[in-house]
């Protein structure tokens, strides 16, 4: 299964927990919407409006929704687990809000774990990214000893060492200062452009130094 370029369409999508809450003012839920390739989207909403839920639905981790999500016209509800494995290897990359690093692996090992799924040797690239984000000196420290902001940067690098059509960023800068947000944004933009990919970014409403094409309110 190859998606290139991948159009993501939502049709009347609503997560079940949100549907139970009743009336919604949203440009995403219960509407027709497509995410076009190589486009940067920012979804903003206060907590509890389903930002992470949408990201998890798009990444195949949650199935408790009504309506449909289509990847190039194929409903994702019909996809097999092995299809998701291929998608996560080739088309979708993610920075989880809760980062999901292996605490007993070092920062470098966490990144290599992802990189080792692909034949290319990316150690120089990883080193460059780490230096850029100011965590090069921490690469050999176990992830559990790093601060949340440092871990966030490790998770960003991990998301960038794989091929993808879409980069899903779930509040990726929440623990970074504005200087680091700027550096990280530049790195992300560079890598996403190189891969001719799109971005779906969630935030609590802040703007980030990324050339967002469309802002949506959840």
């Amino acid at each position: 299964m190859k998606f290139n370029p991948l159009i993501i369409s939502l049709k009347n999508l609503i997560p079940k927990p949100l549907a139970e809450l009743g009336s919604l003012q949203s440009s995403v839920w219960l509407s027709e919407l497509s995410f076009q390739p190589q486009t940067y989207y920012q979804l903003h909403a206060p907590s509890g409006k389903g930002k992470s839920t949408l990201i998890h639905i798009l990444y195949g981790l949650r199935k408790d929704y009504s309506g449909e999500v289509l990847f190039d016209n194929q409903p994702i509800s019909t996809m097999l687990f092995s299809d998701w494995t291929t998608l996560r290897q080739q088309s979708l990359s993610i920075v989880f809000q809760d980062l999901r690093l292996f605490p007993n692996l070092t920062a470098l090992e966490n990144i290599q774990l992802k990189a080792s799924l692909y034949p290319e040797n990316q150690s120089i690239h990883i080193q460059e990214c780490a230096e850029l984000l100011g965590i090069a000196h921490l690469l050999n420290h176990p992830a559990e000893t790093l601060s949340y902001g440092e871990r966030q940067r490790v998770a960003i690098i991990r998301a960038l060492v794989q091929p993808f059509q879409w980069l899903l960023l779930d509040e990726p800068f929440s623990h970074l200062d504005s200087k680091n947000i700027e550096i990280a944004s530049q790195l992300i933009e560079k890598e996403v452009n190189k891969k001719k990919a799109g971005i779906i970014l969630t935030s609590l409403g802040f703007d980030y130094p990324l050339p967002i094409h469309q802002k949506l309110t959840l």
Partner: protein
Amino acid sequence: MKTKLLNKILLANKTKLPFIFSSVGFLFGLLLLLLSLQAYFQIKQLLSPAANATDYLILNKSVNVANSLFFARPAFSEQEIKDLSKQSFVKDMGIFTSNQFTVSTVSNSQIPLYTDLFFESVPVRFIENTPSNWDWKAGQAIVPIIISQDLLNLYNFGFALGQGLPQLSQSTIQLFTIPLKIKGIQKDTLINAKIVGFSDRIPSIIVPEPFIQHTNQFIGENKIQQPSRLIIQVNNSANTEIVQYLSQQNYQLNQDKIQASKAAILIQFALSAISLIGIAFIALSFILFSTNLQLLIAEAKNEIQLLLQLGYPAQTINYHLLIFSIILLSTISITAFLLFFLLNNILNHFLIDNSLQINTSAHFSIYLTPLILIFVATLLNTLSIKYLIKKLQ
């Protein structure tokens, strides 16, 4: 790199004690099984003669007081002979025909000795190294005789020494012509006999079948008589079926060959018991082992789920856990082998010191057993790992 990272994620910091316990159980069970298998094959080899060697057993019924009082011959009935010939261990069967006349030597200058004798005959195919002149036709002047080697030994080492008679070699005794007097209810006659061979197999004085039939008919009682001795050919006298059948029928045997099979029954029983314990150990450690694998997967549940989320194919994780279990089982098997060879070596030294001739090399099934076990375990683990990982998706 990937393997190292997966090891660190899936196996490091996980409970290892249960694995050590089940490994020791597996090791012990395998060692027990290997040792009893080796012992089984060695004893089997010791008890069974070369591949297609055959043994001959001579059977008779027990003689009891009634036989002595009433002159009743403990003979085999037609039915009994038929039943015996149907037994799977009987390859061939021959009937002893005995004389229905009296026979005695006539003392002369060559043989200054008078003795009563008896004759028996068996079908020629039961006689080992049949002499070339082993035949008799009516009117033939000299009857060939084969005597038991034991009989010659009895004469040479018992009789001759005590009576001041010369000891006789096999070749000397064959030079003599022995005059015999045959006396039956029909008539008497004189005939010459010559010893032409010696038998280890048949403890009797045997003459060609045509001679005994002719003499019974024309000199002796000329009646049909049920045989009181039978000779059977078997493949392996240590076959435990023989002992069981014979004791059930209350037949007696001339040889102590059958003792081996009595021992074999006991030894096989003991070895089966030990093998069973070994197999039980292995079965238990199998269960323990697979439970530990489940525990390992349960403990690494979050890690496995995260690996799947990162795009790791389930097969990669299955394969990694499987390789881990194969390496562990192989290590145990190799250790069991080393211990086995060590113990086997010690045992063989003991056997050689006690001058037991035994093939000390390991039987091929010794090598096969752990391979089969690893194969079966791997098959079971493959299924259980696949099932458990699928549940985590």
